[in-house]
């Protein structure tokens, strides 16, 4: 097998705390003489592409994003008459199957159809199953934690679990319950932790 691995000399700019505030970017390492690639991570958060063009005189700009660019930015690139283009790259570390907004929306709609009243609780259960995975159904300690975080009793939790399995959101192999879309559960867990719905202390409690 032959693989030619591409390589570029990259200038990594010290990014300010608020990474979309380009006014505080340190550009001292950019040289007019040496063609430099400027890599901008998390480009999905960019709203005004023009802010970054000020570097274009002495750098090739590469926007790197795990998910989709904002529509306004994408439209700007698509109408750049070929001076900019979008390419799919496969860098495993940043490409570990992230989810797009559409995928998440489809997932939420699926839950809405099966249990409109308990959407949040199902999402929470998914998030917890993700966090505690691999999840053995015989593991009493884990179940107790889940019941505590969800504030529900065992029979209600069993019903919810059945619901997940019946509707193809989870499956059971032997005693192991596993999620069909763990990455969505990861994103959901992320949101729940950030908005305070799930407390890390509760998850990590002995």
């Amino acid at each position, binding site marked *: *097998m*032959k*693989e*030619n*691995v*591409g*390589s*570029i*000399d*990259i200038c*990594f700019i010290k990014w300010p705390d608020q990474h979309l505030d380009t006014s505080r970017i340190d550009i001292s390492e950019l040289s007019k003489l040496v063609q430099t690639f400027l890599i901008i991570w998390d480009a999905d958060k960019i709203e005004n592409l023009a802010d970054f063009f000020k570097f274009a005189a002495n750098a090739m700009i590469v926007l790197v994003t795990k998910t989709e660019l904002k529509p306004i930015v994408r439209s700007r690139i698509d109408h750049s008459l070929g001076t900019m283009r979008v390419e799919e790259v496969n*860098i*495993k*570390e940043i490409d*570990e199957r992230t989810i797009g907004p559409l995928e998440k929306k489809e997932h939420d709609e699926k839950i809405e159809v099966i249990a409109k009243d308990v959407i949040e609780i199902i999402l929470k259960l998914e998030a917890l199953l*993700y*966090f*505690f*995975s*691999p999840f053995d159904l015989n593991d009493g300690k884990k179940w107790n934690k889940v019941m505590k975080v969800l504030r529900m009793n065992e029979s209600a939790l069993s019903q919810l679990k059945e619901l997940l399995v019946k509707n193809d959101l989870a499956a059971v*192999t*032997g*005693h*192991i319950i*596993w999620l069909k879309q*763990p990455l969505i559960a*990861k994103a959901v*867990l*992320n949101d729940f*932790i*950030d908005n*305070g719905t799930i407390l*890390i*202390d509760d*998850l*990590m409690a*002995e």
Partner: protein
Amino acid sequence: MDIAERKNQLRKLAALDSAKATQYLESLSRDLVKEIKQSNENNYIAERLDLLAEFAFRVPEQALEVSRFVIDIKPKETRPVKSRYTAFDGITHVDLILKAIELLNCLRYIEPDNVLSLASELTLSKQKEIHDEALKLIQEYTSYDPRIIKQIGYSAQQKITDFIAAWSIEERIRHIDFVEAAAEHLLSSSVMSSEMTAVDKLTLTYGQVVPTELLKKIRQEVMNVILELFKAASEPKLKLRLVKVLDNVTQLPHNVKADSEVSKMITQDSLYLVGIYRQMVQAGILAVTSHIEQQLYWMNRGETCKTLESIKLRDDIMADSFYQIFDLLVGDRMIRHLEEGGWEKSEREHAQRVSTLIESINKKNLGKLSKQLNNIADQQNLIESWRYASFDDFLIQLSETKPLEADLLFEDAFARQLPLRSFVFGFLFGLRIKNEFKRWDKYTKKIVGLQQVEYVVPLIRSLCLPKGIDLLKAIRENDLDIIGAAVNRNGPLYFIKGIDDPRLHFTILETILRCFSRAPKRMQSLLIIEINTYPRNLSGAISQLHLAIARDWIHISELSSDTLHFIASKLIEVPDLNWEMQELLLQIGQHEGCRIVLDLIMKRIRFYDGRYKELFPKHYEPIPFHMNPQLQQFIGEDAEYKRIMVEWLGSITDEWSIYNIEVSQLLHSIKHSYDEILMSLIEKGNDTSLKRATMIMHSIEGSSIKLSIEIARRTNNEDILEQVFSNLLSTGVVSGEYGIAIAYENKAKELEQYKDDSDEGVRKFVASSIQKLKEMAKHERQRAEESMEIRRIQFEG
């Protein structure tokens, strides 16, 4: 909470993109750092370091702080960890530092300056594990990993080159291991990585570097650093190490064809390298010049590295008359074979050149030759020892054909303590081939006078003459006395008494065996003394005896019955009877009868039975795990075997014992008459005999269904039937996730043939066994599926 579960959860939190998760991890890391600093317990610190390692990349400052702390703290006492059954060695200070290196490794691209600085200090550690692990970190950081290059280009390689450049020459020499490891990787043109791309798939990616201007600059800088260090280094050994680092400059990428850009870069670098080589050759160190000459040969063989300069430099080296002698006597013969069109031709020409050289030697040019030979001998610590085989051959031939000149050379070497003294074997051996007793005796006196074991070894070895020589003429009574003195460590060789030198022991043994036919009785008793003097190396002695028989130096029938019993008795305490020992045992058995072999096996079983607690955890196998098939057949076909085994089975007890296990193991290993021997026990029909038969039948390879049914036919004792069923569960080696389940299902199928047996007891046993086996197979399938699912979940994260 279980530590593994806690680590799993921390890993999950670290993988989130959540500000609260970050805050939590930062706070936790501060607590962990505090706990580590306050603790006096290595085991406790290690546990905390393990937790921190799960998210170190999220808290680089704290991870660095704690790594520094662990490296710098005063070692604390190691406390054993007690478990229910035994106590394990506790975590040592070295273990803690290794964990700190693991943390540093997580941070190598995040905090490269700090990580390199700490790692460079750790490469100076006298503790090999720490030194090696720190070096591994450097290698991982420096290597061209396609996953990393895709993200940061060659900035890691640039960083480490700058890091080395910032050191003074003295600092670079002090950190030579670091510089060497980094330089070797920096000069590589290969790109390689491995990663799990699916739960059951490891993908190895090979490629080649892309020669950017930065990369070319890095390679050149590294070559310059190595040259600079070469000039500054005073030790020839260090100079040779540095030259070898440059081998990588000309290496083409592994497993892929170099593209034109890479080839061009290597061609240009090779040209630059030849300039460096020319300066290195000026140092006048033979081993260095020889290495460069070999490298130039390989460079000039292909098209990528061959240049006019590389051809010229090699020609210049080869044109030197002294180097020609060096090359003839210590050169790499493999290269000559390739260069001179085949092994035979090259060997013929080599022999011719050696003869010509020897012919040209006379008293007049001896002074010059002595200087040259001593220079060559002086490189023996730098050049691989196998290359000195030709040098030894030359000295043998020289003393055979020109004993006077050879004598003068060694006279001078001994008088002035020159390096050639170390090669006295070839000289002495040549003298013995030509029966030059007088000269040999003169050097024996010198060696006895020197009282150094390093010269006794070649002296004794020189009596180990080649095949075809008449030993009656070539080995005198005096020589036998010298061998006797060496064995008894007395007389003129008293000074070797108490010296624990395996080379000496091997040489003495080999010489005894070689001279066996010269004086069989005397050598036989010396053999016994020598084996007893050096019991630590019994397996080596047996191996030599085995080899001597194969070489026809000695025949087993020449050894007395007492000697054979002595050898067999020595095999009792050997941890395992290896292949050679079993072959020797077979020969002894064929000569003395099978009883001596079976007696030895029983003595080994009794020895283990009495001391297995004392021997644990040392390895001891009374019955060889890999039994020699010929020995197996010899024992099995012996008329006495069946009777002796039935007798031994009579001593099997109802309780667990080493004796029971090993006697059963022997029965399984020999295989011969297995059913017959066991049926003799089963046919007794009483529960005691049946119970013993079930114990014997227990084997990891699985037990005979036919015999199991015969037991079930004779009893309804629940305990015995349970044991018979338990024996059926042994599956031997299975493969695949469902291997055990399939093995159970197959056992159930095999039992089907007995479900309509005329005996009610058998029918009942079979029905219940089939049902249980099917249930267990089902359960096993579920367990396998669960474990596969867990693996997938853990892989996907």
